[in-house]
Structures are given as C-alpha cells and as structure tokens.
C-alpha cells in the first residue's frame, strides 16, 4: 500500500465511511422489503404488491413484460419494491410527537445512541480482506490509492465491536424510561435483562474462534478460520457449537423472534418504542435492522468462512490456484450474510415467542454452560494438539 499524506488519509476515510453508510442505507430498506416478501410467501400470501411502480421504472417494465407474456404480474417478486421508498418517506415526513410527560432530552437522545452504536460497529467490520479496486491516477487527491474492503484495520477489532454493540441497549433502556409510560417501561426492563444476559454467552461464543485462530483482528481472524492455518481438524466441533450459540444469542441481541420480548406486540403493544413516532421510531427500526446485518456479518466472517467458500478450516482442501473458488471474494461474504438474514426472517415466520422467565432460563441455564464447556474444549484443542 502506498503511504498516504494526511489529506489523502482523511479523504479516503470519508469516501469509505460514505460507502459503508450507503451500503447500510440500501441494505436496511431492502431487508424490510425482503421481510415482507419472505414472510408473505411463507404465509401463503404475496406480501407487499400494491405499490407496484405503476408503469415506470424497473417494476413497471417487469409488469408490462409479464402482461405481454400473458401472465398476471401478481407473482413478480419485485412488485411492491417501491414500498421501501414509501416507508422511508413516511417515517421522515410523519409528525414527530414527544409525549407531554416524557423526559424530552433523554427521549431524543435514546434513538441516537441506538443508531450510532449500530453504525459505529461497521467501522471495524471488513467486507473484504484487501483492496477492492484502485482509484485511477487521474482522480484528484485519491488517484492511485486502493479502495479497501474495510474502513479501518483495528487490531483489536472484535473487542471494539463487542464493546460498541453493547452500548445499543442504553438507547432502548433510556428511551423506554424517558417515555414515562407503562408499556415502554416493561419493555425496557425486559430488554435490559435480556441483552445483558445474552451478552455473556455471545461474547464467550466469540472467544472460541478468537482462541482457535489467535487473533482479535476482524479480517485476520476470518481468514485464519477459513483457511485453517495451524488449526487442528478437531477445531471444527467447538466452532460448530460456537456458531449455534452465537446465532441463538444474535437473535436475542437483536430482539428478533423467538426472543422479541422487548417489543412483543401482543403483550406490550409495541414495547419500548410504544411512544415513539416519526423518524425517532425510524432510528430504532434502523438500529434493529442494522444490528441484524452486523450479527450476520459476524456469523459469516467467523463461523461460515467469511471471504472464502468453505468454513471451519476446510478451505485448505481447495488450493489457492483454483480460480474463483480458491480465492477470497466479497461475493462469498455477502452470500453468507444474506443466508443468515434469510434465516432471521424464516425463524420469525415459524416459531412462537418465549416467556420472560423461560428466556432467562435459556440464556443462563443452557447457553452459558454450553459456551463455557465449548470454550474449554477449544482451549484443549488449541494447546493439547
């Protein structure tokens, strides 16, 4: 990598931050659209179809094409795609109500904390371990510099991400408390208990790959785990258990079914965000979906092979000389991210919701001992073999 002066560093940083923000702002609405559609199809209905784009744009062309082929365009999965634009517009344009008895400053601060914590995590996530492309020399300032697949290469990236993602719960708890209302208060209490309980097994389950690969750097860790450099073949087992525990805790951390107690709509109306409206609610929503993406990125990078095709050190059986399959690719990374995001939606459509005490049982009585045993097994494999 060519050395950069201060201006170049700042401009490159800005470009990459904006690129990641754009990625988030594209993925989150697409994820909500995917949620409508995936759950719709699982539930023998069509999901959003009404906002079909009429006769213009991509969906318009698709619809016309289907009519031309003599088919009713009802089943076009892209029908209803403009709904996400409408969603965003609605959230932005809606009246922003602060309840009269709410604690105004905290009420406003809470969604900001949530969303900042969720976004901040992305600064240490690597979507690709190297340069994606190099800016041509004719560009001012950044000419000749590589565009990396990550914002910053923090050597304790995993620690940073874990620390920052636990800050998000403050947003929920403060927002719930500041609403000065009963249902949000209950939701906030549930959320505090839940996220703190699941933080422990989540962190411990992430220690398994950290221990096995011996790195805290996001991309190094991911690369070592998939290529299996100096990893014993037995490491597959603790990694597999770790993956199971991590995804379970990930569902709990992001308040998704079957752990969606803080916002259980049939019990607590809307849980912690009952009193929120407009873009403040939108921020909570954005934070939840961003967290889903974060969890998926983590699971993808550490347990499913990240930038390589095969996980758990199996990649070493495909020599690097094989084109595409043997090489790291951003496509593999996102393929796995989308698979896990799909699982989020799938689970939501399938299972009921836990009760508060049962949720605590699952966290403390099953997941925590399981991760501790697993961590011990990982340590044994690392140092005994």
């Amino acid at each position, binding site marked *: 990598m060519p050395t950069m002066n201060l201006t170049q560093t700042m401009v490159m940083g800005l470009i990459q931050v904006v690129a990641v923000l754009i990625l988030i702002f594209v993925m989150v609405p697409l994820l909500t659209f995917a949620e409508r559609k995936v759950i719709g199809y699982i539930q023998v209905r069509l999901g959003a179809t009404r906002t079909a784009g009429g006769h213009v744009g991509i969906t318009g062309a698709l619809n016309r094409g289907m009519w031309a082929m003599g088919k009713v365009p009802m089943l076009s999965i892209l029908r209803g795609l403009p709904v996400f634009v409408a969603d965003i517009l609605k959230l932005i344009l809606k009246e922003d109500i602060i309840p009269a008895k709410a604690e105004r400053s905290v009420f406003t601060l809470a969604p900001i904390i949530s969303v900042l914590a969720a976004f901040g995590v992305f600064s240490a996530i690597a979507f690709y371990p190297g340069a994606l492309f190099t800016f041509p020399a004719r560009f001012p300032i950044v000419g000749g510099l590589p565009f990396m697949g990550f914002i910053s290469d923090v050597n304790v990236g995993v620690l940073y991400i874990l620390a920052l993602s636990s800050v998000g719960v403050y947003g929920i708890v403060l927002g719930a408390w500041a609403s000065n209302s009963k249902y949000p208060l209950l939701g906030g209490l*549930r959320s505090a208990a839940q996220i703190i309980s699941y933080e422990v097994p989540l962190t411990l389950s992430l220690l398994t790959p950290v221990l096995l690969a011996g790195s805290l750097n996001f991309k190094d860790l991911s690369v070592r785990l998939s290529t299996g450099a100096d990893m014993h073949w037995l490491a597959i087992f603790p990694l597999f258990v770790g993956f199971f525990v991590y995804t379970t805790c990930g569902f709990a951390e992001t308040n998704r079914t079957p752990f969606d107690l803080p916002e259980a709509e*049939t*019990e607590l109306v809307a849980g912690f965000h009952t009193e929120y409206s407009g873009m403040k609610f939108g921020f909570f929503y954005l934070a939840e979906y961003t967290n889903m993406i974060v969890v998926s990125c983590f699971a993808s990078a550490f347990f499913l092979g990240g930038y390589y095709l095969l996980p758990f050190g199996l990649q070493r059986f495909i020599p690097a000389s094989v084109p595409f399959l043997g090489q790291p690719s951003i496509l593999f990374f996102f393929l796995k991210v989308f698979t896990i995001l799909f699982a989020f939606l799938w689970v939501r459509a399938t*299972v*009921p*919701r*836990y009760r508060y005490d049962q949720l605590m049982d699952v966290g403390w009585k099953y997941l925590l001992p399981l991760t501790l045993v697993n961590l011990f097994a990982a340590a044994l494999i690392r140092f005994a073999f």
Partner: protein
Amino acid sequence: MFKNEEMEINLGPQHPSTHGVLRVKLHLDGETVTKCTPIIGYLHRGVEKICENQTYFQGQVWTDRMDYVASISNNLGWAEGVEKLFGIEVPRRAKYIRTMLTEQNRLASHLLWLATHALDIGAMTVFLYAFREREYLLDLFEAFCGARLTTTAFRIGGLREDLPPGFIKSAQAFQDRFLPCIDEYEELLTENRIWKKRTVGVAKLNAEDCIALGVTGPVLRAAGVPYDIRKAFPNAAYAEMDFEIPTRPEADTYARYLVRLAEMRQSHRIIQQCIEGLPEGPVMAKIPKILRSEVNEVYHPIEAPKGELGYYFVGEKGGTMPYRMHVRAPSFVNLQALSKMTEGRLLADVIAAIGTLDVVLGEIDR
C-alpha cells in the same frame, strides 16, 4: 429513597390481544401479576332488552351480533328455543342442514381461536393458515344465506330455503382438503418446543374450579369432564350423529389446544355424516304467520364453540314478543376464570389465558 410499589396497568380496552374491547386491570409486581380484574361492558348494546321489544321472528337478527364469529350457533339456539316455546316440530332435512352449518361454524370459530391464540403467543404463520380455511367456510355461509358473518341463517320452524345448488359439492370439497390442513397446524405447533413451553402448565383450571365457576365448553373438557350438550341434551340432529367428546386430564392451555383441535376433527366427522345422510323432504314446518305465546318459560341450551349457550324465554299470554329473554353466554361465564388462572403468574400468561378462554366480547357485553 427508593419506593417499591406495584404497578397498575390497563391491558385494553385498546390492546392488540384482548380480542376486542376487553379491559383487564392488572397489578404487576415486576412481571408477576398479583391481581387481575377483567372489566367489561364496552360493547353493551342491550340485546336482551331489545329482543323483548321485537317479535320472535325479528329477534334472531340480534343473536348474530353476540358471538359474531359463531353466529350460526347463536341462530340455532334462538330458533330452537323459540320452537321449544311454541312446540314446533322441525322437518328432518332442516335439522340435518342446521347441524351441518352449525358444525361448519364451529370449525370457523375454532379456526379463528387457533389463529388469534397462536398469534398472541407469537406464532404468526398459523394465523394466516387458519384464516385461509376460514375464508372457504365463510364463502359457504355466503352461498347459503348471503352473509359471511351476520348470517341469520335459520327461520323459526326450519329454514327459509333449501341449500343452494352446488352447496353440497363445495362443502365436500372443503371436507376433502381440511384434514391435511389440521395436520399442517399441528406440525407447526403441537411438538414445537417453544409452543409447549408457553402452554404446558399455563393457566391451569381444574375440574372442581371449572364447575364452581360454571365454566363450560373446551375449557371444561380439557379438565377431564366429558360434558357436551350435543351428547348430554341432544338438539338438532346430533342424536343421530356418531361422534366422540374429546377430553384431556391436564387442564392447562396445551390441553385446551389439543381438545379444540380434536373437536375440529370431530366436527369434520359430523359434517361428513350430514352430507352423506342428508334426507329428502321439506325444510320448513307449517307455522302460523304470527306466533302468540301462552304463559310459559323455556330454557334451551346448545353447545356453542365456546361452551354452553343457553336461551331463556318467558312468554306472556297472547304476546308476540318475549316477556323476558336472557342469554347464558359462555364467554361471559368463562371469563370469570381469568383471575383464577392468572394471579401469581407472569404477564405473558395473561395473554395466553385470554387466548385459551376464547372469549368474544360481543357475547360478553351483549
């Protein structure tokens, strides 16, 4: 410095899972319910008083608006109660058609219960699966009487008209596809670990308490008491039908779920027998244009999907309207059990208990 006090919270009347306008006043200690008081009356229209000011023919329309998800059962109770008051004998074909429609309506009601109960507990897909089948049943009702919900399906003395052409064929088509649908719901719920965790041992109400509180229907049968009006005091054509009364000994939410699902299979069986054994003949008895009663009183119970639905009529000499009409609404009586079921349990169990009692507020408030 710190106070430790119970929180009083109003669950409803506008709440996603109180099935209408039920308001439950809860005292919460953390998430534990210490006191639970159902407050009703938001939907009160004075149906009983209105019916005392209308002729026996007109009154039936109001029964649709009581338990609006099982209006045909309500119609049956009214029609048979009035027929008992005047000693009218209904033709056999009409009895069969009434039985068939009532059972189809029981299916529709149980499907709605399954849908909302599962949704309350968080399983949202079952909701739409159950509504898919219920739609088909509502189409059948629409074909029969022109209305999907407020049916006013029967007339005193029989039926206004015979079945429309093609009705039996559509009903049979539903019969053929319905059993696999029940299996589909069971696949999603019966062995689902989370579903079992949320329902097994939750909102228990044993047989003694059920009887002391007057609770009837699937809740009583799930406590092991095989009391079903269709067997105990057969009305319509139930005496000629071959069916069983499913019971469970556990008396919890899960047992009620299993009992209701088994009841759906039994209803399916009864409908099949009605379709196959449907006799020929008239559907309307000869009755006078104006019914004038003697001094007389009648209590007529039927097995509605929610439990024992009773109609009580008092006739006055020469009157064309009931002197007094009273409805023993199963939801109203069953709702009494809510406090007993939920006190000392968690907030989420209140939601499960409301769902498992299968209350309809139109019937409670009348």
